[in-house]
């Protein structure tokens, strides 16, 4: 509750002249002066407020500031009620002809700027001339990320992408897509404004690594473990390719690091009408593993006596064979 105004304290009207204020003050001051009212604290309190009211109202500048609401009855600066933060604050909408626009209804917002001005409301106001061009703007592009497996990236295919919890899109993956490539799907972005076209969906594709395939351009590389017997005697072994297993011949006496080529088993794609295909390169890795038992050891011991060899005789600077096994 507001305290008594200084006008009320002195019992004068708001438009009283300085003379009237002085007279009212003198009369009350005499009545409530502490010397004339000993032992009456309420009179003393009253006298103080009378003096304060008179201080304020007898000074034309202070009185003016008080009248304008700049200071309160005790002369203390009042916080200025700047209107702007209020107008733009939570309550300000009630003075604004447009009211609140539902964020879902962006058309309203653009209509407000583009197609005919305010819709009126309390306070009326001017309307901008009609007949101007409607505001049109393409919808925003939307960004998505999609991780696909290695084989799908290489051979192409379809992959499902959630645009929103309710909206799904089967994205066609072109064969040979690379990690980080961005697919642009026209018209799958945000809706346009004012009849403008929808934006695009930009899909950044990430390709998950494969446990044994590796890509170099359109070629596929892999390392194929072979047993000692397969390497020494030669064999026909199944090898995985992008399109399923094929049988490959290991030549007799193959060594670790030997590279075999499966022609046309790399990435196939159409470039300007002609189809091209990469190859698959298979690098052999001789694995002794489980076959390294006592019997083999004994045999190699005998065998080595008559077959001395030093595979490191050429080893001057490189250690590439050792690194290839990693």
């Amino acid at each position, binding site marked *: 509750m507001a305290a008594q105004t200084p006008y009320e304290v002195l019992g004068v009207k708001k438009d009283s002249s300085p003379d009237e204020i002085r007279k009212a003050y003198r009369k009350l001051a005499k009545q409530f002066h502490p010397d004339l009212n000993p032992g009456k604290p309420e009179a003393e309190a009253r006298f103080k407020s009378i003096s304060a009211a008179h201080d304020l109202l007898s000074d034309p500048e202070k009185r003016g500031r008080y009248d304008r609401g700049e200071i309160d009855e005790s002369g203390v600066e009042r916080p200025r009620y700047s209107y702007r933060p209020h107008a733009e604050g939570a309550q*300000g909408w009630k*003075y604004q002809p447009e009211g609140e626009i539902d964020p879902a209804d962006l058309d309203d917002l653009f209509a407000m700027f583009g197609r005919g001005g305010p819709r009126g409301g309390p*306070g009326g106001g001017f309307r901008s001339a009609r007949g101007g061009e409607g505001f049109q703007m393409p919808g925003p592009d939307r960004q998505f990320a999609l991780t696909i497996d290695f084989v799908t990236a290489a051979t192409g295919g379809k992959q499902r992408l959630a645009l929103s919890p309710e909206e799904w899109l089967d994205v066609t993956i072109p064969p040979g897509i690379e990690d980080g490539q961005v697919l642009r799907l026209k018209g799958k972005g945000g809706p346009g404004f004012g009849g403008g076209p929808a934006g695009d969906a930009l899909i950044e594709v990430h390709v998950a690594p494969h446990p044994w395939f590796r890509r170099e351009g359109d070629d596929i590389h892999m390392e194929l473990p072979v047993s000692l017997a397969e390497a020494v005697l030669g064999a026909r072994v199944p090898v995985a390719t992008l399109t399923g297993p094929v049988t490959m011949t290991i030549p007799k006496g193959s060594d670790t690091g030997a590279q075999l080529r499966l022609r046309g088993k790399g990435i196939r794609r159409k470039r300007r009408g002609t189809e091209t295909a990469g190859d698959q390169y298979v690098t052999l890795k001789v694995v002794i593993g489980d076959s390294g038992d006592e019997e083999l050891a004994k045999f190699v011991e005998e065998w080595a006596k008559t077959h001395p060899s030093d595979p490191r005789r050429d080893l001057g600077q490189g250690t590439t064979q050792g690194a290839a096994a990693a």
Partner: protein
Amino acid sequence: MIAFREIVERFTELDAGELTRWVENRWIVPEAEDSEAAERWIFHEVDVARVELILDIRREFALDEETMSLVLGLLDQVYSLRRQMRRLCHALENQPPEIRDAIRRALPPGTQKPG
């Protein structure tokens, strides 16, 4: 919540009849403003700030009531536009940089504030 009487007391330049008329003009819109009794009206800080604004304008420019209506109508439109603009800017701020760039590029020349 601020009562009618508090506002009239606070602003010496304002009397009860005036404030009542301002409410009738819908320059000031308190809660329960359909009530006949001014004592029932409930004002908020925004209303007090607006009273102060009207008093300031009236004192500085000596406007009559008709002109004041026009000025307030225009002011309200400006604030409404500012509010919508700010909401739009806020929405744009939250877009990925690519979208913000696209919008920047889509702005017709001459509409960008220099600097």
